[in-house]
């Protein structure tokens, strides 16, 4: 019994660690900011999911009752990662970061940069 629990937890940990490493290698190797944004927000979040599930299984086995704290962290990370990625992409558009030459729809960068909040006059029409 203990062997199988340890095997399952070890496999989940190794999968999680692999995906976290893939995310960081992508962050350091990819050519421009918009491609770099993909690696940590997807691969690292998936790797964290693996590590948190491993921790959940181990703690449930060790303590003898269901341990669900880790699910809270996983849920929080899965909610906040896309929000952070969206904010970072908006920041990069606003700061006019260097983009790859073959990036499509580059004319939209100017539009996004000049985006304004709706004025009071428009709202009262």
């Amino acid at each position, binding site marked *: 019994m203990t062997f199988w629990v340890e095997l399952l937890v070890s496999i989940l*940990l190794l999968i*999680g*660690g692999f995906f976290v490493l893939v995310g960081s290698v992508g962050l*350091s190797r990819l050519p421009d900011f918009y491609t770099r944004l993909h690696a940590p927000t997807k691969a690292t*979040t998936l790797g964290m999911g693996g590590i948190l599930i491993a921790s959940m299984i181990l703690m449930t086995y*060790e303590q003898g009752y269901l341990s669900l*704290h880790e699910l809270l962290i996983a849920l*929080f990370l899965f909610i906040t990662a896309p929000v952070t990625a969206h904010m970072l992409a908006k920041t*990069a558009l606003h700061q006019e970061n260097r983009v790859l030459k073959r990036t499509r729809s580059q004319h939209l960068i100017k539009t996004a940069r000049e985006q304004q909040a709706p004025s009071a006059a428009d709202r009262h029409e």
Partner: protein
Amino acid sequence: MLDSAIFIVSGILCLALVLNLWRLMSGPDMSDRILALDTMYINSIALILLYGMYVRTGLYFEAALLIAMLGFVSSVALCKYLLRGDIIE
């Protein structure tokens, strides 16, 4: 077996943190640096959880949850500062 797996994954996470640190230092723009910091706090949450698994205690989850919340808030605050020149308008 579990302890050696925890050691191997800790080594992998340290390597990932070094790669993030390299991007943090050499990132050409501010948004690259914010992204590197964001990834670094997520990786450090993983390291804290691994230490909690190594000593078989649930004491470190609260610390990990706090780091997750404060890291998210700080990333959003830095982005807001770069976007609007102000954090709370």
